[in-house]
């Protein structure tokens, strides 16, 4: 934008609050910014940053809220990495994340391509796809729990009418996780579509005009123009989706309670269970530290990749 360039080129005018009449006024005005940000900062520090530190601290202790805290060093982590159940949890989380991301993004790109023409029907369809995203997760979980009911659910009824074998959606160790993934994709695909569409609409039209003058086929136009142009949005969306997947809890808790036989126990659910049901607070904190490290790595990776590549905007 022209305006921005101009603003950068000119020396920034001195802010007016630094201009003063009296000494007391100066001090007051110097404090003003800190006063303004103080409420927000206090909340962020007390309820986000301090808890992180507290969690790391707790991960070195054994504590069940009854007996006094006992320092155990890295024992929690050692126990954790020796526990096959923990690896199952980790694996479950990765499986959930991978497939939700794959289908959630893949279908969203297809949907965005399908809906990219701005017609009335397409706008309506877009809103329809998006609707589940604003619905409370509790509702979505229950709706699907009902649809996936083994005996009376709509899904199995449909399979029967098509003369296909019915599925034990939430009760089978091999299927339950994919059922949760299905719900998650159903809920988030509309959001992804929305973001991808808005990124696509931001691609300047003259690029497409130039491409059509160059007689580029539709597929090449997509891979050479659309995809690179929307890649910053795609990267950001991927990060958002990743974090959303890592923190999955509601559907697990309401639909499967981590079962059958831990087949759907994810990291957050495991933290919840170990902390709130088994009162292994130190151990649960150690699991939290693992989750934090995973999210941290993804975020750093994102910013690393972002600063190196994807500079089309």
């Amino acid at each position, binding site marked *: 934008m022209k305006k921005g360039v101009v603003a950068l080129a000119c*020396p920034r005018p001195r802010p007016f609050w630094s201009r003063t009449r009296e000494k007391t006024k100066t001090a007051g005005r110097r404090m003003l910014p800190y006063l303004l940000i103080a409420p927000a900062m206090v909340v962020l520090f007390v309820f986000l940053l301090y808890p992180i530190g507290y969690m790391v601290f707790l991960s070195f202790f054994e504590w069940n809220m009854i007996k006094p805290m006992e320092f155990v060093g890295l024992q929690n982590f050692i126990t954790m990495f020796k526990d096959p159940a923990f690896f199952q949890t980790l694996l479950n989380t990765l499986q959930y994340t991978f497939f939700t991301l794959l289908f959630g993004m893949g279908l969203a790109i297809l949907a965005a391509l399908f809906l990219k023409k701005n017609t009335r029907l397409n706008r309506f369809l877009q809103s329809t796809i998006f609707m589940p995203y604003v619905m409370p997760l509790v509702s979505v979980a229950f709706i699907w729990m009902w649809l996936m009911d083994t005996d009376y659910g709509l899904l199995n009824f449909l399979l029967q009418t098509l003369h296909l074998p019915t599925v034990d959606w939430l009760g089978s160790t091999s299927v339950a996780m994919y059922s949760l993934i299905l719900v998650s994709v159903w809920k988030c695909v509309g959001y992804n579509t929305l973001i991808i569409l808005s990124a696509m609409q931001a691609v300047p039209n003259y690029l497409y005009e130039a491409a059509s003058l160059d007689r580029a086929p539709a597929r090449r136009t997509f891979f050479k123009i659309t995809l690179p142009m929307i890649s910053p949005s795609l990267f950001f969306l991927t990060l958002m989706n990743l974090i959303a997947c890592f923190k999955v809890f509601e559907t697990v808790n309401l639909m499967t309670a981590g079962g059958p036989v831990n087949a759907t126990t994810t990291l957050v659910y495991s933290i919840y269970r170990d902390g709130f049901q088994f009162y292994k607070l130190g151990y649960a904190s150690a699991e939290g530290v693992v989750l934090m490290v995973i999210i941290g790595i993804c975020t750093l990776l994102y910013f690393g990749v972002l600063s190196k590549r994807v500079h089309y905007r």
Partner: protein
Amino acid sequence: MEKIVLKDVAKAYGKNKPVIEHLDLTIQKGSFTVLLGPSGCGKSTILRMIAGLEKETAGEIQIDGKSMKGVDPGDRQIAMVFQNYALYPTMTVRGNIEFGLKNMKIEKSERQKRIAEVAKMVNLEEYLDRMPSQLSGGQRQRVALARAIVKKPSVFLMDEPLSNLDSKLRAQIRTDLIELYRKLGSTFVYVTHDQVEAMSMGTDIVLLENGQIRQHDAPIDLYNLPANLFSARFIGSPPMNILPIQATNGSNLTRPMAAAHVGMRPEACMISVKRPAANGRMLHIDGELVTREALGDQTLYKVQTPYGQMQVKSFSSQLIPYGPVTVSAEAANLYFFDEGEQRIDMQARSVSAL
């Protein structure tokens, strides 16, 4: 009587080299003073310091003889019109005009009276309840003016207020501004990089370069008596032809001893195919006609000479054909400049004949 005085003012941003240093400027009461210069010359900064939007790093600014140190912009009895008008987008035209009055704690009946007055003056009566986004560029410009006028300030500051308008509208608002200035009788300080605006409206022009005043004069003096090469080149369109003094070699013209450059305005030059006979009152320079722009009432010629390119503005309807030509100028229309690029006053300095 002086209205605004800048005494030894300097301005620096952060630890950078100052953009303005040791600036002394006096603006007379009731004058229409134009701060003119290329972009980056510091003219806007001077205006903003007068407004109090920026604090001078050193020196002092006085309005009506009172130091403005520590006086907030709102208390300086000034009004400013911005380049992009800076209308409050969420207020109606009336709201925009009224905002300042409300802050000045002027009572309602008086506010309404003033708004009605000013709306009539700038022809905005029907638009008072519209939002700025529903107005054309020219109308927004008038709202910006109204917002300034209604405060009855003793000084109007204007920062390139016409640069966002198309040329036709610009010409019209130029005459409107002259009318307004004559009607209000206040002091106007006007910043522009456009010499036409400066020449047509200003009673005083302050020509600036690199934060320094190059010349401060009435428009006609700026044109007729440029103080230096910068003034000579900046004022006039196309600008004055400046050639090295060697161009006068061979002619038997009187020229000052110290002269390093000779200048002549394109409109004071003549162009001919055949070289007229030399005499002591004319300077002739041979060259080749490069381009020719016939504009109807006048023709612009560009001529390549051994001393550099020259431009000639001719009001003759007869077109000169491409090929070798001679550019001539009368001795009385020549300007001489010394090594330091200052103009040599022919009356004051000793003159030597060659």
